[in-house]
Structures are given as C-alpha cells and as structure tokens.
C-alpha cells in the first residue's frame, strides 16, 4: 500500500513535468531536468535525514540553523586558510553537523526533553552562533577558494557532483532503511516504542542516532549551500526546516512516526523542486510558491489520514474519531 502511494506521487510529479513540458518544451530538455534535480539535491538529502528523525516519533527543527552555522564555519576557514583542501573542509562540515545533531540527540535521549522543545531551542542557539562566528558579515564568493566553489559543480557523466552526492545519499538510505538492523529499528521505535523496547531496541539511543544522522547531513549540506550560492551568512537556509518537513509530509512520512519510505521523501522533495522551478517557466508569479506548497501539504496529509487510520493500530482512537 505504501508503494502504491509512492507510485501515485511519482505519477503526479511526472505528470506535472510532462504538463509543463507540453506548454514549454524547453522545460523537459535534459539540461533543464538535470538543473532541476541539482537544484533540489540539498532538499532531498536533508529531507531524508529529517525522515529518519520523524520515523522515530521525533522532529528536528534545527537543520536550517545547522546549515547556516556549518556553512559559515567552513566558509570562514576557507577564507582564512585557502590552502586547506576542500575535502578536509567537507569532513569538517560533516563533523560540525554531527556534533550539532548529537547535541540535539543527547538532550532527547539522556534528559528526555521532547524533541520539538530541544530543537526549537537549538534552532535559535545554532543560528545565533552563526551570527557570532561570522560577526554579522557575509563571506562572499571572491573570498572563497576556486576549488571550494568548483567541486559541487564539477560534472561527472553529465551530472554535477552535487547531484551525485544526493544520489549516493539516497542509495545509502535505501540500503540502511531496508536491509540493516538500525534501519528497521528506526521504524520499530516510531511504530510502537513499547514493543520496540521488548524486542531489545534501545529507543532513546535509536532517536539519538537519528538526530546524529540528520545533523551530519545538514552539516554536509552547509558546505554545499555555501558553495552553491557562493555566499555564507547568518540567514542562509532561513526557514529551510519547514521546506524539509513539507517534503517529508508530502512524501507520505507520518508525523506520528513509523511510516515513511525513501522514495516518498525523495518524491516529496522533487515535488517542491518542480513547483519552485516551474512557476517562472509557465509565467506564474513565484509568489504563488508558498501557497501551492501549503495546499500540497494539506492535500497530502488529508489523503494519508484516511489510509493511516485503517491500519488498526489505534483501536480506541477509532472510537474517538467515530
């Protein structure tokens, strides 16, 4: 049934692309489609990290702030020491992101503070630290080393590195969630935490790991963001956490935990990417974007609500819903 859902969303995305291509043939040119995917790559990756967190009945509101902080930090290091190799900076971005995610996760795991409260707090803290680190200034393209900017743009087999990163992350997630104990533990933790404990899963630790993964991806994307837009300052990725959650929700990830697929999250992100890229092409004001994504979120959750209720997990809740 979940696969049927993903197919439906996939069909909608393809139909949208085809429909726009019918009006404006240049939209479906291979170059434009590659650009579309490349433009959505960061959203896809961060949405996958978020999905794991949501699977474990948590939520991470901090990825936008995480991106801003790591983006500013790697850009600062790059501006101050242009000789430091970019792969090293990527490792640094990943390490910083992991640290920020681990901080979220530790508060959730060890102190039992609700995830929404923890990440609401760290959202402010991380973005504040980005301001402190940057001193309120922007690090712009000419301060960055050429390779810092060039690496995500380097094309391999016709696709930029940025897109390849996304493809690799998607592949890793597909294997992780389908075929590893950890991956199944994410589903079990959110699907039924009590039963998960009885099967020997450490629920708190699983949530901690989910936050670490989400933070790691956000950190890596902090570098990609700074490089792609050739600018790093305190407000980059402002409100991005909501796009990320929207991608998950449109992709059929249940906010109650335990339900969600890699394909769904990727398609949810692509849906938002297509809307964003298509509006200017069909001469609709880009100001429509937010309203459309709002309608898409509501439509997706209303469609999913009917399906999730029939799973029979919450018998008493049915009585309430009558």
């Amino acid at each position, binding site marked *: 049934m979940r696969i049927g859902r993903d197919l439906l969303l996939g069909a909608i995305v393809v139909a949208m692309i085809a429909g726009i291509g019918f009006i404006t043939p240049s939209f479906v040119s291979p170059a434009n489609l590659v650009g579309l995917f490349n433009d959505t790559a960061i959203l896809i990756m961060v949405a996958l990290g978020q999905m794991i967190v949501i699977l474990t009945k948590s939520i991470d509101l901090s990825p936008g702030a995480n991106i801003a902080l790591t983006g500013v930090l790697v850009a600062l290091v790059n501006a101050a020491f242009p000789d430091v190799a970019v792969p090293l900076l990527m490792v640094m971005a990943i390490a910083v992101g992991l640290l920020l995610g681990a901080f979220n996760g530790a508060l959730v795991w060890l102190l039992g503070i609700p995830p929404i*409260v923890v990440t*609401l*707090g760290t959202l402010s803290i991380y973005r504040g630290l980005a301001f402190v680190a940057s001193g309120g200034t922007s690090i712009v393209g000419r301060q960055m080393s050429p390779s810092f900017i060039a690496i995500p743009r380097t094309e391999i087999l016709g696709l930029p590195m940025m897109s390849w990163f996304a493809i690799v992350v998607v592949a890793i997630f597909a294997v992780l969630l389908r075929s590893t104990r950890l991956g199944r533990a994410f589903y079990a933790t959110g699907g039924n935490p009590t039963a998960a404990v009885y099967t020997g899963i450490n629920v708190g630790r699983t949530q901690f790991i989910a936050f670490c993964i989400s933070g790691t991806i956000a950190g890596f994307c902090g570098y990609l963001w700074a490089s792609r837009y050739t600018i790093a300052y305190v407000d980059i990725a402002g*409100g991005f956490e909501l796009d990320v959650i929207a991608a998950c929700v449109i992709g059929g990830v249940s906010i109650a935990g335990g339900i969600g697929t890699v394909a769904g999250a990727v398609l949810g992100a692509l849906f938002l990417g297509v809307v964003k890229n298509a509006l200017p092409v069909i001469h609709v004001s880009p100001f429509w974007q937010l309203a459309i*994504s*709002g309608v898409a979120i509501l439509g997706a959750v209303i469609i999913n609500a009917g399906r999730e209720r029939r799973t029979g997990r919450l018998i008493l809740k049915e009585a*309430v819903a009558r």
Partner: protein
Amino acid sequence: MSGEEHHAARVIPDRIPNRFRQWQRWEVLLLGVGILIFLFNSFASPYFLNPYNLSDATFNFTEKAIIAFAMALLIIAGEIDLSVASIIAIASTAMGAAAAAGAGPSTLVIVGLAVGLAAGAFNGFIVTRFQIPSIVVTIGTMSLFRGIAYVVLGDQVYRTYPAGFEYFGQGYVWWVFSFEFALFLALAVIFGVVLHLTVFGRRIYAIGNNPVAAQFSGVRVDRIRFILFLLTGLMSGVAAILLTSRIGSTRPTIATGFELEVVTMVVLGGVNILGGTGTIPGVLIAAFVMGLVTFGFGLLNVPGIVMSIFIGSLLIGVIALPIIAGKITRRRRTA
C-alpha cells in the same frame, strides 16, 4: 514519597495536589530567573529603570504574549498551532486591502478579527474533521496563509491606514501604560480565569491528559479542540491589529518567526509541550522574562540574534536543570 517522585514525569490527573505543587515550584523558579535578569539589567545599564523605557520595552512581547495565552490552552489540550504568524500576515494583508478600499478603523478591527477567526476555524476544521496531528496541519496552513499574503501583495506594501487606527498599537491608556499593555493584562486575567476557574478549563486539562478518557467522560473533545483553534486564530487576529497599527505597514514577511517565539514563551512558562499541564501565570512570567531579556540586552547593544542564543539556552536550560537535579538527588537517595 520517592515513589511519587519517580512518577512525576507522567502526570496522573487524579493527583492534582501533587501536580499543583510541582508546577508551583516551576513558576517560582522562573520568577527567580526573571528577578535576577531584572536586577542584572538594573545594574548593567543606567537606562533600564526608567518608566518610559520599560513601557517601550513591553511592546516587544505583548503581541506575542497575547497569542501565547491562547496557544497555552491549545498546547495544554495536546495540540499546537504553528500558523499563528501566518495568520497575522493574512489578517494584516486583509486589513491593508480594506484600508486601501477606504475602510475606517472600526471596520479594520472587524476585518482583522474576522480573518483571524476564519483562519482558526480552517485549522480547527481540518484537525477535527480528518483527525490529523495539528502540527502537520498547521505547518501546511502556515505556508498557505502566508502564501496567500504573498499572492496578494507580492513585493508591494500597504502603507496607508486611516487616522485613529494607530491608537491600538501606539496609544496610551494612562501615563506610560499603553493600550497594548492594558489589553495584554486584561487578556491574561481572562485566560487565567477561563483555564483555572471554569469547567471549560478543567476539560482542557482532561483532554490534554487523556483524550480518550475525556471523550468517554462526556467531554466533547473535538468541539473543544475546534474552539481552541478558533480562539488562537482570534488572538492572532488581535495581534495582527496591534502589530499593523504599531508599525503602520503590511508586507508579506510581517511577523516572520513569531510562531517559534510564541511556542518558546509557552514552553518556558512551564506548559508541557505534550499537553496536560501548565498555567497562565507561568506564561505571564515567561512573557516578562523574555521581554526583559530582549530589552536589557538591547540596552547593552547586544544584537537581537545573539539574544536568541540566550533565549534558546534558557528554554533548554530551564527544562533540563530540574531534570538533571532530579537525577542527581535520586541517585544520591538510592545510593
């Protein structure tokens, strides 16, 4: 005694005295933090203890606090509304459009309140009709409502508002007491009475603690949920009137990020984000604490974004410290 302590995290509704004591302690702690911040600020800046300055300082939290009172009720009932800032945007846009069409101040107030109510009703309808978690619904309407403001306004601004409209956000009732501040206090009393002294208030706690049990006890759970969304929409409409009147212009970006500050205020005030516990006095104190921090740091030329580090740490710290303290004492007792 120690047995009760272990269960402190899981609130059991039939143990009201115990829970009451627990949250009283929270408010005392928060009040202590507030007084410390007040004293610190009084020493740190000579401009702090000045009635006119303090009066000005109230403006940066009254609008958010007015929404926070309604949000507190909603969160106690186990729901949340992340669309409040977007309701401000859509209500303010509607008021701007009405003003452009020549509406007077009283019409604008009606427009603001009506749009707030309508938006709240929309949230409440979707949550109760389709039984969807409110966090998802309101993330959706958060985009939708602000999206509509963007569609209407684009990169334009509404700047002209009729004479007399500025009173709501800039007028003073008496001496240094602004209309906003007076309204804020009045609403604090009203919400306090409704939550703590009425059957409706008890039902909100009942729903937050166990919606199924509440339903079986004859509480019309969905109806109360709907009313609470209406109320939150209405208060967002009120905040939209105050904010629009105060700044005298409407852009689609108005009140961006308010929702997180409002939720922070509510949680800082001791309301359990999972529902079931919390008080209006707590939220009131939290509003003052956040206002004092913002104002005091402002006097010391600390940029707003750095204050957010402090507010974020306060949010986590105020919740984490009692938990850590509890863990340490428990360990000592068992050892």
